[in-house]
């Protein structure tokens, strides 16, 4: 019996899926140029915000938008929370992600003031494990330039950054430490921690 058209198509589709899932999950899908372009855009937007002369609260709101647009906030939040994320409910995870985004925008948005008038340049993008590391330098007049490395991936379906290494300091590692301590201080009570995180940063 000849294989029907539909059946052939379904089979071909399945074979295609199988091949796709067998492909090594590497930086492959996202090109080096795309990784660089993403960070070029992020840095242009950051400079637009800090040099806008807006009030601090306005800038923080704009940083929150920026994290949403270019950052993989759900994955950053999940990673910062660590193992407790596995036992958290979907509602708790979404509340935590929301609170964490605001906290990041307040804590780091305020520090970006230091970069007023700075020039930022993308130096290089290199494959690191399964993602891209985009190396940039920030230069403030009269001061030694320092390096900011952006970790970028498309594994959530879009090209997004998920970590920053500022002068050697791994922001995600620092936030894992911070969130871990906050949770520990509240005897592991995630809801209480989320509530306090809304005020922190």
């Amino acid at each position, binding site marked *: 019996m000849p294989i029907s058209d539909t059946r052939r198509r379904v089979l071909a589709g399945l074979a295609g899926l199988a091949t796709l899932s067998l492909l090594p999950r590497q930086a492959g899908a996202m090109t080096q140029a795309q990784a660089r372009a993403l960070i070029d855009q992020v840095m242009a937007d950051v400079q637009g915000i800090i040099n806008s*002369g807006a009030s*601090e609260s306005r800038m923080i709101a704009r940083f929150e938008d920026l994290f949403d647009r270019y950052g993989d906030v759900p994955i950053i939040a999940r990673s910062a929370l660590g193992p407790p994320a596995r036992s958290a409910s979907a509602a708790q995870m979404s509340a935590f992600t929301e609170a964490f985004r605001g906290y990041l925008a307040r804590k780091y948005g305020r520090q970006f*003031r230091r970069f007023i008038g700075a020039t930022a340049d993308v130096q290089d993008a290199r494959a690191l494990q399964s993602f891209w590391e985009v190396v940039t330098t920030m230069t403030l007049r009269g001061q030694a330039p320092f390096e900011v490395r952006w970790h970028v991936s498309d594994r959530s379906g879009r090209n997004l950054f998920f970590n920053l290494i500022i002068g050697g*300091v791994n922001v995600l590692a*620092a936030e894992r430490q911070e969130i871990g301590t906050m949770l520990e201080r509240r005897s592991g009570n995630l809801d209480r921690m989320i509530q306090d995180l809304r005020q922190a940063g």
Partner: protein
Amino acid sequence: MAPKIKVLAFGAALLLAACGHAPVATGTNDPNEAVNRVWFQRNLALAGVVSRADSAPADPASEVPAAAPRRHPFRHALGNFGANLGLPGVILNDLLQLRPDHATENTVRLLLNTTVGLGGLFDPASRLGVHGRSSDFGETLHRWGAPEGAYVVLPAFGPSTGRDALGLVVDMALDPMRLVLPSAGDYNLSVAARLAGRFANAAEYSDLLDANVINTADPYAQARLLYLQTRRYHLGIQAEDEIIDPYADF
């Protein structure tokens, strides 16, 4: 003094002979955490007395335009002065590390800032793009293959490691400025000026210290993390297993 230098030179020669790669330091090794926490609190109190009188807490609800933090001219000059006094020691370490390029750049800095910069109060070298690169005997030990050792919080000097604390002692003994500046009893002026410079520099960055250390849930743990990460970065240590891939975790 002379026999001390001879002993050190002998030790240096021995270490150079055994010159190898330092083991890649990762994670935190803090066996004396309880004692370290006590010194950490005392240092914070000391730094607060010296420098934090003029820092106002930032209010997120503030509608005032956000401005870049202002530089305090006196504090800035003190920071420059202390750093300049430390340069001869830095250059000596560059040479001990067989890094003539760093030694040359730091020598240019020293000459420019001591003359045009009025004894080191100003930093014209940086304006010309000659930023130099700091170094110390802790780094020299690292280059010679010494392991990092345990994390330690030193009185007044702050976060360090076993290797870097030993380096600090050697730096004070080897400091070429001791031959130039007078010393009053056990206190030598060079060390005092450099320590004052470090506090002045810390005050310049007090907003960063507040946001990333002081106002966190566990300032001690954050300071330890930040110190170890920035120190290893400065030394060029990159550990593969410190890289976080959050997509691989789930």
